[in-house]
């Protein structure tokens, strides 16, 4: 049986009829029509589906609708805009990070939460913070450079 859920996504309130057991990912992609986040593995192992729930990274492919509550949801589209980019987005463009870019959502959302809480991180700390993410194109070194650049920009 479906239920009515109210989701606050990037500051906009949406009402969604959905199965309480349905992962949030499908509400964001199919009901609300966002092209981010992405489905990668469906098992919380790759991170392509990452969103922020009240600022904390969450894997939306295993986050059920019933567990979202009234948490504020932020997706990649809510992180920054071309006019006002998040430092990570600016750094990603500067370093020309992605190859295909399918997984980009997970890295940016995870790194954004990490850099907000950890100023001037060491390389080891960055690697550790991003260890649960997968990029099959193998752009990891570029990702590392971009996160370091963004960390400098964020002071």
């Amino acid at each position: 049986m479906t239920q009515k859920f109210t989701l606050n996504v990037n500051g906009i309130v949406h009402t969604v009829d959905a199965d309480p057991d349905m992962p949030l990912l499908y509400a964001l992609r199919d009901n609300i029509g966002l092209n981010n986040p992405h489905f990668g593995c469906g098992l919380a192992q790759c991170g392509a589906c990452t969103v922020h729930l009240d600022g904390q990274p969450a894997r939306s492919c295993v986050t059920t609708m019933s567990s979202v509550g009234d948490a504020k949801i932020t997706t990649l589209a809510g992180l920054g805009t071309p006019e006002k980019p998040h430092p990570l987005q600016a750094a990603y463009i500067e370093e020309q990070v992605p190859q295909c870019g399918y997984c980009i959502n997970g890295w940016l959302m995870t790194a954004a939460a990490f850099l907000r809480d950890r100023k001037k991180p060491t390389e080891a700390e960055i690697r550790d913070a991003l260890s649960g993410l997968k990029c099959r194109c193998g752009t990891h070194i570029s990702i590392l450079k971009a996160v370091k650049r963004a960390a400098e920009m964020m002071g």
Partner: protein
Amino acid sequence: MTKYEKMSSLTRRSVLLGGGALVVSVGAGVSLETVLSIGKAHAQGIKPPLTPEQLSSYIAVNADGTVSAFFGKMDMGHGLHVAIGQIVAEELDVPFKNVKVIMADTAVTVNQGGASGSTGIQTGGKQMRAAAAEARRVLVEMAASQLSAPIERLVVNDGVVSAGDDKSISYAQLIGGKYFNVQLDWNKQYGNPLYAPGKAQLKKPSEHKIVGQPIKREDVAPKVFAQENFVTDVKVPGMVHGRMIRPAVAGSVPVKVDESSVKDIAGVRVVWDKGFLGVVADREWDAIQAAQKLKVEWSNTSLPFPDQSALYDHIRNASVRKRQIEKENGNVDEAFKNAAKKSKPSTNGRSSHTRAWVRPARWSRSRMGRSRVGRARKSRTSSNKASRRHSVCRLKASV
């Protein structure tokens, strides 16, 4: 300017339909066929046929002097539109920013093999380079006639042909908004092997000014700002979601499918055709649930593979299906007989997988030395040629 055009904003057809584009035939020796084809193009208001031997199938100079490069392969995130744009701009002597790369639209590009095997530059780029060079040659020839100047005196800068004095003419003035009708020497192959050069000499790498420059990709920002649609993001009206249902073991096919097991999920349809089984539903989550719930009886439940504990025996006893020596250099038996030092290969009997020298020439021997074949080769120093032959044998024996 966007480096690669979306299908909805293709310039070529709009230029064609709106501007009443002409086709011009240039270069020496206009054949009867060419004349007829120009006439046809005029009559129908279309360009020359989209065939691999037509220069217009790869390159067009638009009325505003920009260049359209019609590329019959697809980028998969490697930035091919930058590379192809550079290659075309280089050979044509136009600014990089003036080249638009239109990729893999089958209505306006020839079949250069789609996206496969990292062939975008090595085969796709090779053809675009040859086509761009031929376009430049033809344009310079046209300019020589227009400017009444010998070809040797002409130089091209940013799409403008100059005769060294005050006389100059731009590509746009020469052919802008019209199509080339120039025959290329097509090798009659489609896909990756397609190659259709003209008569032009390619630039030497030492002359390259645009190729080799680091140029930023224009698709990075849209990806970073979640403005780019991936295939999985595309939604069309009336679209349904599907999920495949696969057997737990290889070689198994569905024998019985109990559709009633998913009847409580509204709108689910089962698609079963011999070995193919899937479900479709209006909503993605419904399809996912149906794929999980559908009761299926499968033909096989045990793995059709040899027992893991007896794997090596299986490999040792397996018969050779094919043995083929493609090239023979030297004599293995002879080489072994005369070897200063002999050692046995480290394998447990016959190889179960491919072993061969697959080595670009630039790789060092020490790097290859890490592989088992490499080690074996090192010990047989008496004859590199002989061991190479041995490797080829092995490859073929294990395929």
